[in-house]
């Protein structure tokens, strides 16, 4: 859905999304990384399994919730990517935290 501007800083780092290693630009938020990777939806709601993705990118809407390093429901827009970071999309509506 989003691409990196060609002339911006070129450094890439490896992180893991849903157990898959991926390369993303260094210094960006995890929510931005998901847009960069087109990893949509970034979660499903617990109530109706409806697909969602980051909406406000500033910590207010809580749509970008993600499981990070075993901790569920972290706001991906408030976390910077770092090498080796492991995150899972919460795609199972009934079992939050089940991926860890």
């Amino acid at each position, binding site marked *: 859905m989003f691409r990196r501007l060609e*002339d911006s800083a070129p450094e890439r780092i490896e992180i893991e999304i849903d157990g898959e290693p991926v390369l993303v*630009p260094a210094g*960006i938020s995890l929510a931005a990384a998901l847009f960069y990777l087109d990893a*949509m939806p970034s979660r499903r709601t617990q109530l109706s399994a409806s697909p969602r993705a*980051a909406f406000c*990118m*500033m910590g*207010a*809407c809580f749509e970008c919730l993600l499981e990070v390093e075993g901790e569920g429901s972290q706001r991906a827009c408030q976390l910077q990517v770092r090498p080796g970071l492991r995150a899972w999309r919460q795609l199972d509506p009934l079992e939050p935290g089940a991926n860890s």
Partner: protein
Amino acid sequence: MKTSYPLVIIGAGPAGMAAAQVAAAQGVEVAVIDEQAQPGGQIYRNVDSSPLADAQLLGRDYLLGKPQVQAFRHTPIEYFPASAVWYLDRNREIGLLHQAEHRRIEAGSIVIACGAQERPMPIPGWQLPGVMTAGAGQILLKSAALVPSQPPVLAGSGPLMLLLAWQYLRAGVGVRAIVDTTPRHNRLQAMLRLPRALAAAEYLYKGLKLISAIKRARIPWYLEARNLCADGDEQLQRLRFDSRGGAVEIETGLLQLHQGVIPALQLADAAGCEMRWSEMQQCWQPLVDAWGESSIAGVFIAGDAAGIGGARAAALAGQLAGLQVAFRQNRIGQQQRNRLARPLQIALRRHLAIRPFLDSYYRIDNDAQLSDGTTLVCRCEEISAAEIDAVAALGCSGPNQAKAFTRCGMGHCQGRFCGASVEILLARHRACSVADIGRFTTRPPLKPVTLGQLAAASGDQS
């Protein structure tokens, strides 16, 4: 980190940075807590650490923040970035998460400088992946140098929408269409306020520059758009709307919504500050005096968190709050305070001179909101407008009763994205002003915190 500070400033945007610098310069011991990893707030995000090859593409106003951020970095204060205030009460007791641990701080004075959030723009399908706020698009650009792969549709009303379109154009990204919901009759009201706005003519000049650049790019610009509806199954596929009587459909995978910004009130609420409804800005604002002090003594609110005035006005308001705190803590005398404040007050008045014009030009039409009962009012708990209408029909006494009856506002976002909608729906049902409806009571936690983090803190205290 100490357990108490004479002054705690929450937020390191233009208002918070300015308040910190002024108070520290007068010898006040200051702690600044900010949720972001870098100072600057949303407006000056990454201004001195931009991933962009040329940050000029964001415009001159953005770069104005760079010296402010750099000066802030050299100010002798205790600065706690990436730290979230999850608790605040009227006794100025603060609970925050710092490096994933709960800390408790008592503050002599507090300056709340947490800025604004986007006014929710609820339309059917706004919860789909592929729909985001215009502000989110801008944050992706500022902080990650990310731009849409395909030209997006921008919908709504307000300067930020136009600014984002302009920035996308400068970044070489097209804009598929602008779907403008600004009501036509706003124009006359705005023109009446134009003479006063001339005192801040640079804002008008900047606006005209954006508009003419967008027009030159021949972006389809639909006016008086109503009944917007985002369609899609797993992701956004198209936007439907009516514009000047005709039905329009645009295929798009990305829709960026915007209808202005409103003060982020959670902290002021938590501190127990009195609020009033602003008919002009169509939002609640904390009551503050000329120095930014709220109805709770010692709790100041500066910048957009006290009412939308923009970044320049925010910095000036922050400086005034910083001076008043220094005066209260006997760091400066009254005369010195007044002498230092005078030029700030004059500049503040000038920067605010544009607001009546902007506020009336982009005043949202509440009657046009939430016309479709299927619209999700509460994205978190998935409560529709029709469900709020149903409890309104029960005679529901106000937003908090509606929350209790439906769970609307009980989800993760704590009502940030549904409160305004519930107020509009209840006011419509009762045919009264939102001022008479009231608002959700804000509950802690203001930011996420786990039981384990809290439990660990309890052990420390016993």
